[in-house]
């Protein structure tokens, strides 16, 4: 087994790096920069049952070391994703993590059932935490019982393992994580964005047409690290970690905190080749840290058995 390989339910990854959902579209644009087969996996943009236009613009605003987005889950809808996007991605040797969203429980179930049957979809990522969807959405992500019920229902219809993507806009992330684990989640993705806003002092209005949006980027990394550190010690299922990853040191930090794989979101916008760059830097970093394989890093900040040098 290669020293970069990571195996988590549904996903046998050549390396632990994948682009994060919503920050990579369906891969087409980034395929113009590099061969997508280099990636450990790809988390595609949230798919909903029907096509969605999303929110009014402006949909993004910059903040210090971060950005706000209120895209509002724009996507071409389940049928178009299955017919156009996934077949194109099947040309690459890379497992797909299909991000599933909706406003009602039924939407999630419909999308999950159908998309999980597509051959190159190796796992689902239940987006119960998008802060930009007004109806329903957010509530799934903040009430453990509701999230657990959704997880159970989706697990029942899904043909592939299910990762639940947790919202950081919550007081007790551990209770939430345990609830979805108990409900059958095969893994967790964390974190989604923090809900934030910026006001233009000249127009006096929020910059985002939607008023609020999701904060991502290096600004939120400490929150992500803390939550992954807490949750990874409390659950048995693996975690795909994300939130502000930019450097190879960040990748290591997430894995030491407890992530089994690492997703890169906002950084793709700044550097479209960030994912292959990180993958390429990983072996030398492992050498420098005296680590044989990436799997040794997982949870290294709290795991007793980890050989600390």
């Amino acid at each position: 087994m290669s020293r970069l390989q990571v195996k988590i339910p549904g996903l046998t990854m050549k390396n632990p790096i994948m682009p994060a959902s919503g920050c990579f579209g369906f891969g087409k644009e980034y395929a113009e920069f590099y061969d997508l087969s280099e990636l450990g996996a790809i988390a595609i943009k949230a798919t909903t049952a029907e096509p969605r236009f999303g929110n009014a613009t402006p949909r993004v605003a910059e903040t210090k070391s971060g950005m706000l987005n209120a895209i509002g889950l724009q996507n071409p809808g389940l049928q178009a994703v299955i017919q156009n996007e996934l077949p194109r991605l099947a040309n690459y040797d890379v497992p797909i993590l299909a991000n599933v969203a909706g406003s009602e429980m039924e939407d999630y179930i419909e999308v999950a059932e159908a998309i999980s049957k597509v051959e190159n979809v190796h796992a689902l990522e239940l987006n119960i935490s998008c802060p930009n969807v007004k109806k329903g959405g957010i509530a799934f992500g903040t009430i453990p019982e509701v999230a657990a019920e959704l997880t159970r229902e989706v697990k029942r219809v899904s043909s592939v393992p299910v990762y639940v993507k947790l919202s950081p806009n919550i007081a007790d992330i551990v209770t939430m994580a345990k609830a979805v684990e108990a409900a059958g989640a095969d893994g967790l993705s964390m974190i989604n964005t923090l809900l934030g806003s910026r006001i233009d002092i000249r127009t006096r209005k929020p910059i985002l047409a939607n008023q609020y949006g999701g904060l991502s980027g290096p600004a939120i990394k400490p929150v992500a690290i803390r939550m992954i550190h807490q949750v990874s010690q409390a659950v048995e299922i693996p975690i795909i970690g994300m939130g502000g990853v930019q450097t190879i040191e960040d990748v290591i930090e997430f894995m030491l905190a407890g992530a089994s794989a690492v997703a890169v979101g906002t950084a793709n916008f700044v550097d479209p080749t960030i994912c292959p760059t990180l993958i390429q830097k990983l072996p030398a970093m492992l050498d420098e840290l005296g680590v044989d394989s990436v799997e040794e890093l997982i949870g290294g900040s709290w795991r007793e058995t980890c050989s600390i040098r």
Partner: protein
Amino acid sequence: MKKRGTLDIIQQRPIARNIFEITCSGDLVQEMQEPGQFLHVKIDQYDDLLLRRPISICDVNLDKNEMKMIYRAEGEGTTRLSGKKPEATLDILGPLGHGFPVEEAKPGESVLLVGGGIGVPPLYYLGKELLKKDVHVTTILGFQSKQDVFYEEEFAELGPVYVATVDGSYGTKGFVTDAIDEKHASFDVLYSCGPTPMLASLTERYREKRVFLSLEERMGCGIGACFACVCHVESDPEGTVYRKVCTDGPVFPVGEVVL
């Protein structure tokens, strides 16, 4: 393959109130063959300003491997950019997007370039390319005030130029449309870039003509992946059909997208 590279700053100079012209050189310049495209510029390597800034290509000299951009030092990014010295290097994504369709204007036809404020720059490279094709170029430039006027002389080399200022301190008092009326400017093809209200009023007037408008929208990726810069189309104004300003635009035919 999408392009990425660096440009070296050769010169930077203020040309109007808060307006800077920056001249750069680098191999990437050879890609810049389509007027109206933009560059997605990383201001510097510091993370506090995380995102790139979209800036239009204003002028290109393929022989000298040089290009120019013009920008207004407004927010933190452009203000930092204005402090850069000639040795500095810029990290660039681009050229990006679809520019102005030069081929729409046939030899012998007359073209009106209508630029408002910081929308003026991309029209300059366009005008130069049109001139090469034996097109008659007239330019209308709109600014807030006399201190904001720039590139009047440069455009004058391409053909007649009329300026409008909102406060009347220079040229026609009012908007570009007032100058168009005052000068009875006629055209076969009109190309424009500027504030949305200006583009909207041009749309209202000339919906049936050959008119091409360059839009502005806040961007994330600049390459079509993030869905930040999306707009509705007029044929489905409330629906799910859309255009991305970064890849389908920034230039659209009049009446294609909802302004």
